[in-house]
């Protein structure tokens, strides 16, 4: 039930902020802040509660579940559940949510109520995506987060906002609809096989799909997620969206929206279509590597600060793709780490870009330079973030990237070596960023404020988390371990017997049984009920 | 008493008339001519109904024709009223002058 409350809280808070926005300009901010903080505290306490159990015994994969019939004619239910992965991403969502509210505290001066309405609804949509265990519901939330995001970019963005908003919306919508087709495909195939027409994720897990059909269905899912991630060559919406969005928009885009893509692959593509995923794995990894290098080179050539950061996201998301399709625990844990750390580090970079824009009224790198003199605090934070983004050990991103590469190395040596070379490029663009903005001769003679207290709090929380994740990431790893373990097991079996299934000549009864067994193990056998 | 007229021939006649009506509608400039041509088409359709009705020796074809007649009357009355309006507004019945909306 707490899950429903979380979404309800955000949506309700949004509406309240919208209404209050008519009366008072600062009320919506406070409402939004309180709403998100409440959710955050709620989740955090639950997480801490859970982690105590986690340390002692291998917990159930599924921690909480809520189910209510929705459209019963189609077997659609309002079905939410969380496991470690979801929980982690939810915590991240609310954490960044708070920051998003804070970082737009001064930036947004117009239509504050509506702004916060959108902000909270995006968060609600994202939370929903992370919790939905019904494919229809998932798709529903998947789309719900788009519209407020569209408004956020389209209304509060900078000069070229409308173009960016369209592009964002059309890209994601197009790919989303293809996913809808795939969802329907699996729904009917499962239904006609078993007679049980349902969108329930757990029931669909065990379904048998002919390999060639599975391949196409998987592609349908993949397109949506890959566009969201985004992976080259589906990335071109991202630089525009990121650079035109307001700070909070960029933060949420980079920090959360992109993560839904990775989450989707982990949650749906791999468990639903293990065989097909195996089949495309080399290509997916190749795309990942291309993304890493292509994104990095593009990032290097940008002159727009936010565009530069956006392309670094493209590069970093390549690692995620690489890691996911390596199918082993190391890489998958790395992927999860990357989700979290990239969210924080790139989010922080965007916040910083927003602060710079507030002060300098430009995002053009060529107009910046030598800002260290006036803003040493920001400069230091920027260096730390740049280091995070180039994967300096001791910061969270390093662990993520290292684990991914380590895992991927097992799966594909040459691609991993190429990907590792991406680390060099990441150094090149990160240092260029620092050089252009903070070092060199000062080009701006007007006095510029360094961090205010609000900004210090914002930054400090992000920087501390990134350092914490770099030095002691175990809580994160523990939280998602059961989920990742199950995924890995699935692939071990699939790998062993997969070729038999793929060639489909003669399906040995024993291995098939094994596969199904593992698949069904992903289903909660005895869900803890934490419903209070 | 009657030798049957081949039904194909009648239908072909109806088809010819129908197509002539179409040609008329397309090539004429004056709205009145277009209306006239539409009447030809409706007549052709009526002929087809009559032929079909007589093929089955049923009155239904004729009934249908009567309704077509009614429709033609109603339509012509509104159409002519519109023509009057157009003439008032444009001082001409040139259909090519009625192109204000496009795109």
């Amino acid at each position: 039930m707490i899950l429903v409350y979380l979404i309800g809280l955000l949506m309700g808070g949004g509406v309240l902020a919208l209404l209050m926005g008519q009366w008072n300009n600062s009320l919506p901010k406070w409402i939004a802040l309180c709403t998100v903080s409440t959710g955050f505290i709620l989740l955090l306490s639950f997480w801490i509660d859970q982690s105590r159990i986690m340390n002692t015994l291998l917990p159930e994969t599924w921690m909480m579940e809520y189910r209510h019939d929705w459209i019963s004619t189609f077997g659609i239910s309002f079905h939410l559940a969380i496991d470690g992965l979801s929980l982690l991403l939810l915590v991240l969502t609310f954490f960044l949510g708070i920051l998003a509210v804070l970082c737009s505290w001064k930036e947004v001066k117009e239509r504050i109520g509506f702004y916060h309405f959108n902000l909270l609804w995006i968060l609600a949509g994202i939370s929903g995506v992370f919790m939905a265990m019904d494919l229809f519901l998932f798709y529903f939330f998947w789309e719900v987060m788009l519209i407020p995001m569209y408004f956020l970019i389209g209304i509060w963005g900078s000069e070229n906002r409308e173009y960016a908003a369209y592009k964002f919306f059309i890209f994601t919508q197009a790919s989303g609809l293809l996913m809808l087709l795939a969802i329907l495909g699996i729904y009917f195939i499962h239904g006609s096989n078993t007679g049980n027409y349902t969108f329930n994720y757990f029931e669909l897990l065990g379904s048998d799909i002919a390999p060639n059909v599975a391949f196409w269905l998987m592609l349908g899912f993949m397109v949506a997620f890959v566009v969201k991630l985004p992976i080259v060559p589906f990335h071109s919406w991202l630089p525009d969206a990121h650079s035109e969005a307001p700070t909070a928009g960029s933060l949420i885009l980079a920090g959360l929206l992109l993560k839904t893509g990775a989450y989707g692959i982990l949650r749906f593509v791999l468990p639903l279509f293990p065989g097909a995923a195996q089949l495309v794995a080399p290509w997916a990894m190749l795309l990942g590597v291309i993304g890493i290098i292509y994104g990095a080179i593009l990032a290097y050539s940008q002159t727009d600060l936010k565009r530069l950061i956006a392309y670094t996201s493209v590069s970093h998301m390549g690692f995620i793709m690489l890691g996911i399709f390596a199918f082993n625990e190391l890489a998958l844990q790395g992927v999860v780490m990357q989700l979290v750390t990239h969210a924080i580090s790139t989010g922080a970079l965007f916040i910083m870009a927003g602060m710079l824009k507030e002060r300098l009224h430009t995002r053009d790198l060529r107009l910046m330079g030598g800002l260290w003199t006036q803003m040493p605090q920001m400069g230091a934070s920027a260096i730390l973030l740049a280091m995070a983004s180039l994967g300096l050990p001791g910061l969270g991103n390093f662990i993520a990237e290292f684990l991914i590469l380590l895992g991927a190395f097992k799966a594909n040596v040459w691609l991993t070596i190429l990907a590792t070379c991406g680390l060099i490029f990441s150094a090149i663009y990160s240092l260029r960023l620092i050089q252009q903005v903070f070092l060199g001769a000062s080009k701006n003679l007007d006095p510029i404020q360094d961090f205010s207290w609000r900004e210090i709090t914002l930054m400090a929380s992000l920087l501390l988390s990134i350092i914490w994740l770099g030095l002691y990431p175990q809580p994160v790893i523990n939280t998602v371990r059961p989920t990742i373990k199950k995924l890995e097991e699935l692939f071990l079996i699939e790998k062993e017997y997969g070729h038999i299934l793929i060639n489909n000549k003669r399906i040995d009864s024993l291995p098939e049984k094994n596969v199904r067994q593992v698949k069904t193990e992903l289903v909660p056998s005895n869900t803890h009920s934490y419903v209070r | 008493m009657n030798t049957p007229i081949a039904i194909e021939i009648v239908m072909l006649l109806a088809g010819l008339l129908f197509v002539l009506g179409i040609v008329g509608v397309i090539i004429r400039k004056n709205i009145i001519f277009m209306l006239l041509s539409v009447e030809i088409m409706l007549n052709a359709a009526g002929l087809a109904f009559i032929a079909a009705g007589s093929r089955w020796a049923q009155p239904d074809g004729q009934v249908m024709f009567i309704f077509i007649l009614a429709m033609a009357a109603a339509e012509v009355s509104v159409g002519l009223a519109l023509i009057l309006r157009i003439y008032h507004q444009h001082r001409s019945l040139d259909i090519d002058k009625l192109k204000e909306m496009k795109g």
Partner: protein
Amino acid sequence: MLGNNFIALSPLLLLAGSSVLIMLLIALKLSHRTIQFASLFLFVLAFSSLFYAHDLFSHPIEPLLIVDRFSLFIMGLIIFSGLIVNILSYIYFEEKEESPKEYYVLLFLCTLGACVLAVSKHFISLFLGLEILTVGLYGLIAYLRARHYNIEAGIKYLILAAFSSAFLLFGMALIYLQTGSMEFLTIGQSLHSLTSLPPLFLTGLGLMLVGIGFKLAVVPFHMWTADIYQGAPTPVTGFIATVSKGGVLAVLLRFFIEIDGFRFKTLMLILISIAVVSMIIGNLLALQQKNVKRILAYSSIAHLGYLLVALIPGSTMSLQSVCFYLVVYVITILTAFGILIILSTKENDADDIESYKGLFWKHPLLACIFSVALLSLAGIPLTAGFVGKFLILAANLQAGFWLTAFVLVISSVIGLYYYLRIISKMFSGRGGVLLKEKRAYPIFYLISVIVLLTLTLFIILFGTYPSGLMYFVAYFQFK
């Protein structure tokens, strides 16, 4: 028996009677307001008579009409649309130069025609219903007869409609020649044993499709749509988009089911091509359009394409999805046109997209309503349009029509652009041409807004909790 006939026909009788009654009221020189209220009352009466007629299960009135659940459903939809258009008409016509009274007579007649279409099971009633609707529409479209656009649209519609009627008639004649009957069921029975359609029948059907296609405004019979939508008074445009298309689609559906047209490859091929081309071309046409009414016209072409796609599998689910989508479409399009009506001024209809600039900051409520309607048309979740599209896709995939589903997806992505364009205009910066709300008629303004708000709530309700409507649609399913 006769009593039952009366009960079954009560909606039609009431509508016909209403038109006469209104004429009498006009003769008594009553005010616009009185007539508006009277017609409102009469519409409500006609609508409620449906519940009365509902007790009869599948009541045929040989040989022309049949009142069954499906026709009741469609009639309900039609009368409901008529009702909404009627309410919205007041503030539109009150400030126009024409005496608005005859308008109501024609409105009733057109609604009657559409209802006849919904209940007809015979070519004669089909033809008559269609013509009542069409001839009524001639009057309605050209209603503001002093305006060039109105008259131009009127004559265009008249010539084209008569032209396409001729095709329809010729096609019917051919079918009649082939089968010896004009009743759907008998026609169906004569085809029962056949696996492929006889050429004469097919030709007739092809020619009929020209006529029907024209009324539905599907490609390649779509070209009139934009001009007529733009030229006609806005309430009438809304009426054309909903009532006229709903009625025609209903009769098409009935005809197809009775003859079981889904068996015939050629026929399906034609339908699929029409649907596919409609979706794509409709959306493409609207892409850069600057006139909102024209945009809605082009979007309606695409939506009719969607409806045809929904029809194509011919399964139970497909029919349900047609009905569901029809409801959604009607509600949504009425909402959209409602906004246009409210924002129209005495001189101008609010159809220039530039005039919507910054609407949100001036009239947030109206802008929100309009946005919801547009998003529903675009098929975005939380709105009913999404569920509708979902059902269509589901029906298609269930039957294995991947191509049509795919084209639907692609074209709706194209379509997204222009809906977003309007929305982003509304939310973009202040300024732009000032659009006035019609505060001059506070009561009717309030009523209109409340009506639109209710419709919007329905859009959202059906989008978030569609089960109710699904059951409803399934209950009123054909057969």
